[in-house]
């Protein structure tokens, strides 16, 4: 279980997140908020790239900043901008990152082949990534997030650059992962999570505004679909500010 307890974060005088309390267990969680709401900041704290100013994040009851590497080895992460070595092939890069996660080299090679097949890159696994399109690089990133067989998988805006067929393939992967892992999907694209997320989290005014199932959210916001619910939650602010 991943717990976020009273977490706050500010950059200089600008408060990004305030008193965030969330609990994650196995399943797919969609973080749905407009750009600049604080989704990426929250995710970076979960993957230990940033430290919270207040509060703590616990994995099975232990603070993740104390656990350190023992926590990071169970986390798989696809950032908003996936970093890679352009002169590497997908196989080279994935096995390199897997080694840094302590995955045995033989296991890493086997897993790398299977994951690249699963994301549709089996034919190009030994071609240098500098020749890849943005969508292909993104798919390498998706495979990379799963290389260490993580217990927590976090995707930050994962479908950028993916065509419709690849998005469907990605959603199928998510749905399967959600059965045995904590999957956190951060996006501002409603269709990415509409059919697969068990729980949706919406951040508004630096705090968690809603954390509930899609059915309950629709009921609370008097909406027919998640997109309408999103508009109902955030559009009022847009009209006031305009």
């Amino acid at each position, binding site marked *: 279980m991943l717990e976020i307890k009273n977490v706050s974060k500010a950059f200089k005088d600008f408060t990004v997140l305030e008193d965030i309390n969330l609990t994650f267990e196995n399943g797919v969680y969609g973080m749905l908020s407009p750009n600049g709401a604080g989704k990426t900041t929250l995710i970076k704290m979960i*993957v*230990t*790239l*940033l*430290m919270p100013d207040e509060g703590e994040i616990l994995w099975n009851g*232990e603070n993740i*900043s104390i656990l*350190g*590497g*023992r926590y*990071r*080895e169970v*986390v798989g*992460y696809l*950032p908003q*901008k*996936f*970093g*890679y*070595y352009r002169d590497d092939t997908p196989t080279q890069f994935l096995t*390199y*990152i897997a*080694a*840094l*996660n*302590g995955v045995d*080299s033989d296991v890493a090679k086997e897993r790398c082949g299977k994951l690249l097949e699963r994301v549709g890159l089996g034919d190009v696994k030994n071609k240098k990534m500098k020749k890849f399109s943005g969508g292909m690089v993104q798919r390498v990133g998706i495979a*990379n997030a799963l290389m*260490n067989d993580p217990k927590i998988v976090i995707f930050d805006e994962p479908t950028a650059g993916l065509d419709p067929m690849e998005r469907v393939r990605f959603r199928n992967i998510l749905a399967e992962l959600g059965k045995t892992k904590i999957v956190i999907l951060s996006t501002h694209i409603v269709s990415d999570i509409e059919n697969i997320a068990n729980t949706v989290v919406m951040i508004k005014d630096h705090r968690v505004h809603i954390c509930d199932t899609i059915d309950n959210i629709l009921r609370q916001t008097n909406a027919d679909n998640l997109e309408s619910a999103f508009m109902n939650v955030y559009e009022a602010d847009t009209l006031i500010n305009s």
Partner: protein
Amino acid sequence: MEIEYPSEEKKEQSIANIIKTTKPEPVGTIRFLIDAYREIGIKTILRNSYKIFILSAVTFSLLTACSLFKFDINVCERRSIVYLLSMFFYFSPFILLSTDFMYQIQERPFDVYEMQNTCKYTARHLILLRMPLFSLFTILIDIGTAVVWCSLGGTQYLPHIIGLIASGVMLYSLLNIAMFNKFGIYGYIGCAVIWLGGAAVFNAVGTDMKYAILTGIPVIIHIISCAMMGLVLNFSVRRSYKRLMFGY
């Protein structure tokens, strides 16, 4: 029958005992290094190391050329050869390790750096893991050079050379590893400053001030440029580099 319930103090003691026996203990640096070498693999840790050797050779050649041409040293003089060799032995660990350190910082695009910092072994760990290995390479290079020198008839300098290898290389390497592990990049720069100071004193006492200056100036330039590259280009700009500096 009266049931005796444990007091609050006893309850807390029991919980503390359970946590103590089941929670894994933090490991020391040596144990951590051994586990890391085994898990990651030497081949992965030494990725692209050939570039470091090429860069180091270029750096040392430039330092040597600077010394020779600027201060008009006659390489045919035995004293000059001793100086050059002592400079080589004394500074080879510094050059090899510092070149690797700066290369490690520069060669990663920032996004790759972030990716690695979400791994079990972060970019900082990787830099730390390479240090002992490059220290070992330095020792082997120095021993090889000493063998060549001795075969050319320089056996009278053998104790001097062995002393430099043993104390200089190993001392610098251990100091560098310990200070980087504890203080991050500030530890690294501090170690380089200590080394430079020691080198200047060594040469001033062992030969004369001219050689002390010859030793110092190129290395000062090297340190300053390395520090500026690291600090200005990366650390002052990117918040996430705090992990590299302070470590957590």
